[in-house]
């Protein structure tokens, strides 16, 4: 790939479970994989009862890495045992949450780990077919995964009668074509069925009525990549890597104003301050921290005084934000938060599928208002109106994209109100001159 850089950072503080094979020669090959514990977990799982597999995953405390953080084993247990329609496993590899780039190395450097995780999920819910929905921009990954799938097939790990167990499982890739909303699980299902990517009303949840109307488990790439390790080393081992109810490790993508950007695998619950200082090496130019987005653009922003938090789902939720997708975006003191909010709103306005009015109209109002505001055309009531519009989106939409726009908006409007007032007073952006890019 022309100009493709290794996104992985490297820190002695990392605890490598799902990224441990990344540096091995030819790490994406079946040969390297089987020489390094590959497909051992599948063998073990196939000798167990499906329900026992689900229980191990449940007890490990593994929570979905796609954003919502739901207990994975629990989700699997909602799939009905008997179903007149075929059951499916769908891997969500649509990775499009701004600030997030961790599924990409997982598929690039260790595709077999993901494939093994999906087959085990299939066995656990007794499904015979799975799909990996990859965002269209990741074309080179499709080639890598397709090659790995062919290898797995010829090695007897995939297809009919896997490893002589009598269990059949077919798996293939599917390409998207550019739409953030297709990462939302029910929109993804519609997209996979060849329709426009509009979400479906829940309930019924996909575990009961999903792909082609059959019970369906949808999990993120990172979630599924953890599964083989949990089966092989046990629920307790996995749980103790992290903090209570937040099992394991997590890939954090450090980006923005940080000296050592990169994707780092750290224990769940790793302190944010240490992540920024010791892992990321602080802020370029010795500048001060202004704000951090802890888990992708959909999360409420944290101020510099809120970074003494452990990075697990419950701790971050306790201070009013979310662990989200693992995208940690750092802003230094010269960042204009009005401009940042404008860019975030531009994104949601562009990606809103337009199905429901609060999201369709609200995101585009916020986009235009904040862009005008930043450009010097602020009106006295704008900040209050923007807050009002945000609250009229929150909780009033069909899918969570509306909330994903409203939450960062509300946090910025409230925590950085002073910057809005200053724009209004000056008639232009107070940061325009100071902000110099690090690039």
């Amino acid at each position: 790939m022309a100009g493709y850089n290794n996104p992985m950072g490297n820190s002695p503080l990392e605890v490598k479970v799902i990224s441990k094979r990344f540096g091995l020669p030819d790490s994406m090959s079946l040969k390297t994989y089987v020489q390094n514990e590959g497909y051992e977990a599948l063998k073990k799982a196939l000798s167990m009862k499906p329900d026992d597999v689900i229980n191990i995953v449940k007890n490990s405390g593994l929570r979905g890495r796609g954003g919502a953080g739901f207990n994975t084993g629990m989700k699997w247990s909602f799939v009905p045992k008997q179903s007149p329609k075929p059951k499916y496993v769908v891997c969500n590899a649509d990775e499009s949450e701004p600030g997030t780039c961790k599924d990409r190395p997982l598929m690039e450097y260790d595709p077999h780990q993901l494939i093994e995780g999906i087959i085990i999920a299939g066995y656990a819910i007794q499904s015979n077919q799975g799909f990996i929905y990859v965002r269209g921009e990741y074309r080179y990954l499709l080639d890598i995964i397709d090659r790995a799938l062919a290898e797995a097939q010829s090695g007897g790990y995939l297809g009919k009668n896997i490893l002589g167990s009598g269990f059949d499982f077919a798996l293939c890739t599917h390409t998207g074509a550019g739409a953030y909303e297709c990462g939302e699980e029910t929109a993804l299902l519609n997209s996979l069925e060849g329709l426009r990517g509009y979400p479906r009303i829940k309930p019924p949840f996909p575990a009961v009525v999903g792909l082609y109307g059959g019970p369906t488990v949808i999990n993120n790439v990172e979630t599924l990549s953890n599964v083989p390790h949990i089966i092989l080393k046990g629920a307790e081992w996995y749980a103790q890597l992290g903090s209570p109810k937040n099992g394991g490790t997590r890939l954090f993508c450090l980006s923005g104003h940080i000296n050592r950007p990169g994707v780092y695998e750290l224990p769940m619950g790793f302190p944010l301050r240490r992540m920024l200082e010791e892992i990321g090496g602080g802020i370029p130019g010795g500048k001060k921290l202004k704000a951090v987005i802890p888990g992708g653009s959909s999360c409420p922003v944290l101020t510099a005084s809120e970074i003494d938090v452990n990075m697990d789902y419950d701790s971050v939720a306790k201070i009013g934000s979310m662990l989200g997708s693992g995208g940690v975006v750092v802003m230094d003191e010269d960042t204009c938060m009005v401009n940042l909010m404008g860019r975030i709103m531009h994104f949601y306005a562009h990606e809103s599928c337009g199905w429901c009015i609060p999201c369709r109209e609200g995101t585009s109002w916020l986009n235009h208002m904040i862009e005008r505001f930043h450009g010097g055309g602020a009106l006295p009531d704008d900040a209050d109106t923007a807050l009002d519009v945000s609250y009229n989106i929150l909780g009033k939409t069909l899918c969570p994209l509306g909330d994903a726009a409203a939450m960062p908006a509300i946090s910025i409007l409230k925590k950085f109100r002073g910057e809005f007032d200053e724009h209004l007073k000056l008639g232009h952006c107070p940061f325009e001159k100071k902000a110099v890019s690090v690039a």
Partner: protein
Amino acid sequence: MLSEALHKKFDQLVSRYPLKRSAIVPLLLYAQDEVGCVSEEVIAEVARRVDVRPIEVIEVIGYYSMLHRQPLGKYNFQVCTNISCMLRGADDIFDYCKTKLGIKHKQTTPDGRFSLEEVECLGACTGAPAMQVNYDFYENLTPAKIDAVIDDLKKK
């Protein structure tokens, strides 16, 4: 005329799914890669392959930002200006591309060689600022890197 190789790819893609129409987006995208856009011919063929009416294919096309009804330049520069990239100077990079290529957002050079687009997060945030040219990633961009990429492509 769609190539033999593309027809083979179509056969293989359609056979993956329990429901043929699931293949619509993959078929369109692979066809676009070959033809340069989703042409009338492509739409008709995809509709025929998955047993739907052409209008149903057209309805799907409008939803996806990577599918185009009109041809783009041979090399499509897609510069990410989303947050991680913005914080690392993506707006300047996008402006530089505009000046250097002499075109604006969603425009194509008269010789049909280059197109330019401002896009959302590409999943390359730790290598910001980033862009894709067609499917190739370029990260940690600087004006000098953009120059080198353009010079390189001009030689092809």
